[in-house]
């Protein structure tokens, strides 16, 4: 009995030793990839050192390489791996069909956690008293809002991408004072092109002079979106169907130790068509070593939002 008990303790200690101070998540694929590419990607993710996998269509309901049922099936399958799997949902919900698709995801029989990206999802999930994650397109700009959503069943929130570290710190300390900080997890969109806007208009169809209702699924030809430049060839935005994204890649790898200190629980990597595993490995290295030697400037990426500047800015963090 005593030996068994000791064994249990050792196991727990080992678990504790293994536990990471901050988890890595892979966000939903925001682009439109062929089905096989999606399936291959998630096979890779099972092997990659990520703790949380978000998946599902979060941008456009017309995309159908995987239908809602197939996303749910895939999620249930991946969930057997021991990684946490979260079903992600559309950010812009306008049509009846979009609402019924959303309902299907929220009602999933596998008890999978759902990421709400529109208040419609928050409503459906809270009405059923189901726990949920609030994605970065839910407008949480202060601790009062955070508490309202926590009381509705929110377990984790992803900070809106335009907020900075100072605001995040203030929100978390306010949440501490209000006595609920330990009941939620905080996730930060830490790598990838930033989702900046959602429209009724499809910009990918527009660039091909197609009406949106006959878009011919143009997005599938652009696995990382379409570059939109200024007339001086400056990379400005990325067109991704109805979504507009940043032209540059947001990159907070050097800021991971700072995020850990602030109490961030999850860092999110947004999938790109190539090299996502390498990015995840870099995050894992920084998390495990507790320090970052990666030079942002060499990467030509942006990080301005984190420092309270224009999102497109590159700020050299002297603390790193």
């Amino acid at each position: 009995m005593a030996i068994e008990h000791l064994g249990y303790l050792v196991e727990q200690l080992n678990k504790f030793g293994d536990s990471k101070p901050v988890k890595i998540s892979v966000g939903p694929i925001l682009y439109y990839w062929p089905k096989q590419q999606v399936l291959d990607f998630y096979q890779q993710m099972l092997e990659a050192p990520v703790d949380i996998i978000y998946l599902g269509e979060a941008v456009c309901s017309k995309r159908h390489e995987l239908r809602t049922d197939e996303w749910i099936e895939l999620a249930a399958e991946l969930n057997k791996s021991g990684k946490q799997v979260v079903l992600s949902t559309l950010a812009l919900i306008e049509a009846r069909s979009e609402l019924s698709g959303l309902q299907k995801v929220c009602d999933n029989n596998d008890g999978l956690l759902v990421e709400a990206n529109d208040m419609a999802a928050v409503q459906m999930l809270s009405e059923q008293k189901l726990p949920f994650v609030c994605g970065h397109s839910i407008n949480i700009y202060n601790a009062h809002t955070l508490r309202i959503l926590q009381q509705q069943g929110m377990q984790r929130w992803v900070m809106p991408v335009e907020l900075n570290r100072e605001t995040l710190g203030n929100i978390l300390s306010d949440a501490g004072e209000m006595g609920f900080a330990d009941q939620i997890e905080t996730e930060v969109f830490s790598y990838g092109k930033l989702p900046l806007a959602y429209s009724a208009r499809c910009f990918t169809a527009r660039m091909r002079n197609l009406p949106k209702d006959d878009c011919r699924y143009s997005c599938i030809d652009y696995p990382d979106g379409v570059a939109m430049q200024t007339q001086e060839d400056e990379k400005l935005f990325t067109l991704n169907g109805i979504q507009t994204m940043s032209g540059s890649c947001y990159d907070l790898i050097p800021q991971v130790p700072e995020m850990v200190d602030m109490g961030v629980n999850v860092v999110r990597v947004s999938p790109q068509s190539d090299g996502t595993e390498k990015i995840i490995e870099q995050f894992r290295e920084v998390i495990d070593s507790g320090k970052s030697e990666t030079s942002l400037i060499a990467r030509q990426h942006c990080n301005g939002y984190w420092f309270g500047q224009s999102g497109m800015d590159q700020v050299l963090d002297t603390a790193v």
Partner: protein
Amino acid sequence: MELVCPAGSLPALRVAVDSGADAVYMGFKDDTNARHFAGLNFNDRKARQALDYAIDRKVKVFVAINTYAQPKGWKRWQEAVDRAYDLGVNALIVADMGVLEYTCNKYPDLALHLSVQGSATNHEALKFYHQNFGIRRAVLPRVLSLAQVKLAAEKSPVDLEVFGFGSLCIMAEGRCYLSSYVTDESPNTCGACSPAKAVRWEETDLGRESRLNDVLIDRYQEGENAGYPTLCKGRFKVDDHVYNALEEPTSLNTIRLIPELSAAGIKAIKLEGRQRSPAYVEQIVRVWREALDTYAVERDNFTPRGEWLDSLSKVSEGTQTTLGAYSRPWQ
């Protein structure tokens, strides 16, 4: 349908009231409202005068406190709500859940309208705001088609207001960060989109250039109409073609849709333009008043008059109007 008109200043408020507004909406002189521009909006004294003027003439006053409160400024948003309540306004137009909660707890009798910045595009989202904060009305984002507006109206637990005329956001309001990506200020955080402080005009050999925080937004040749460099309305390069990759400079005009909006059960029409001059406000309010009054008597054979369309086109961005999300290419 109630006609809700913009009042960026006391003179604009007066002409809106005199030209036939059923209600006017205004904001205070700080970042608590989504038109936080220099020289615009109301201090305490002006707000009092505005209220007196409108109430005497039986016109309602709504106050927009519709940006997102951040921790450092939380008190400012609270005080704005307190001030509006003390003024005796008819309703607050609010986006932030924290501010909605504060208002409905402290002033349960004060009518709350969900701002377009609240970004509720469907009845489930509307239900959330109704159940949790008791909102009585919501302003729908300008991204919905007519069928979608009808669906929302059919199932909405609250009255709905839609935009009738003015500058057109093509992105779902309240969830657009294009401006902060380029300039560090956004509608959500600061009440500003493509803020004037970041605008620069330059005459160059290649043409007249408009820049926002040094980023080239557009370049105009002689004879071309140069518009304010709102980010989403510039000409950019995609696949080696230069065009209005997101949207042309144009104004939304839904005057033709009055019968359909009314049949759908829409309770109010909002005119955009708190940043515009009193002359502009007078023009658009007068036309819309006449249109709504005409519709009230000519219900079955309402057609917009040519002169209404002409005078609205003249004051439109790029002197053109669009049905926006109501038109087919958007759907």
